[in-house]
């Protein structure tokens, strides 16, 4: 699965980093960045949770 992040929408809540630290980090302004663009099954649940808790609907999961 592919993870997509629209940094323009991000409000720097840090929720994605809390639930999926292996996939998300924050830049110097607190805006989310992707550490990985493609994820395997091991991280799928974490990223699904990040999609669910992101307040700004900035994260998407897409089938490849």
């Amino acid at each position, binding site marked *: 699965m592919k993870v997509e992040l629209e940094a323009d929408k991000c*409000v*720097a809540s*840090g*929720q994605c980093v809390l639930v999926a630290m292996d996939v998300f980090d*924050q830049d110097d*302004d607190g*805006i989310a960045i992707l550490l990985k663009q493609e994820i395997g099954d091991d991280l799928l649940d974490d990223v699904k949770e990040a999609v669910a808790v992101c307040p*700004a*609907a900035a994260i998407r999961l897409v089938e490849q």
Partner: protein
Amino acid sequence: MADTLTGAAHDATAVPEFPMPRQSRCPFDPPPALKELQSEGPLVKVRLWDGSESWLVTRYAEQRALLGDPRVSADTDRPGYPTKASAEAGEGKLSFIMMDDPEHARQRRMVTAPFAVKKIEALRPKVQKIVDGLIDDLLAGPKPVDLVDAFALPIPSLVICELLGVPYEDHDLFQENTKTMVRTTATPEERGAATREMAGYLAGQIGKRITEPQDDMLSGIAARITAGELTHQQATEMALLLLIAGHETTANMIALGTLALLHHPDQLKLLRETDDPKLVASAVEELLRYLHITHLGRRRAVTEDIEIAGQVIKAGEGIIMANEIGNRDPEVFDDPDRLDLTRDARRHVAFGFGIHQCLGQPLARMELQVVYGTLYKRIPTLKAAVPLDDVRFKTDAFIYGVHELPVSW
């Protein structure tokens, strides 16, 4: 005809008033009348203190959808915006939380950096030291003692001072004024005077940092003035927002959370006996969900017609998201009225949702994790020094909590 008239009159009076009294067997539960509205439907009309009507959004899914909708405005000057109380009318805007994008995003992004998860994590040892120091003082002092005054309020106050860069020697002035600003029994004059004094103080601190920048948030805000991105007044309002936002909220989560735990001894035991930071973190999320201290709803004005849940909310109408019952929505949380520190409560809306979701949430989480993970272990016999019936709850304040909490051990 007569029937129709009676019917109409009946309908008019049938619009429930909001907020409703919080008389409940359990002071930790939302008003029962509010729960009843939730079972009637996701959207209901309510009547506010000034006679105006607004939509009350009772369910989690619709609350999240609307808080994330760009046709929904946080600007208090918009037609239809439901004001909380007469006390709110005429008050100035509290920086970017009352603005819409793009200006909201522009200003909010200026202060997001220090609240990034890893930066907040780096502050944890300092917060631990503050908490340990206050517990040392508690244990060395007389009992019973008011936990609000001696512990719950100083923590967010000391932490935000640290973050903003308020010099240590000014802590007293700072704490006294913020206490008045968030004290619900303060008169409007007292609150106005305290707010002006704090604003004046912060404006002065910001001014100093324009010429002598330091490594703190006030210097970061000052740099925006130099860069022409903020006026001095906007910068001061922003500093004041940061100062106020974390105070009452975190303090009430500490005091009310402790009271709730004292009345759920099996849950308190879990915290007292664990060394697992994951359990402490999940306890914080569950208490945020369960207590939901912002109990008067999140308010917005609708700028374009929105169709939702079979209704059309019209442009110019107000909506109030009753997030405290959203957090008790049985569609989302099993057995929602039960406090269960082991459940996964992360999807709660205690910090709101959408672009205005609380900026300080990583800080709030970390402070509460340190407190909940320390206090009950270090004072295992902690107990309330008054019966529950004698505790004064903040039913009339914007943030729910207790006025004081005498404790002993």
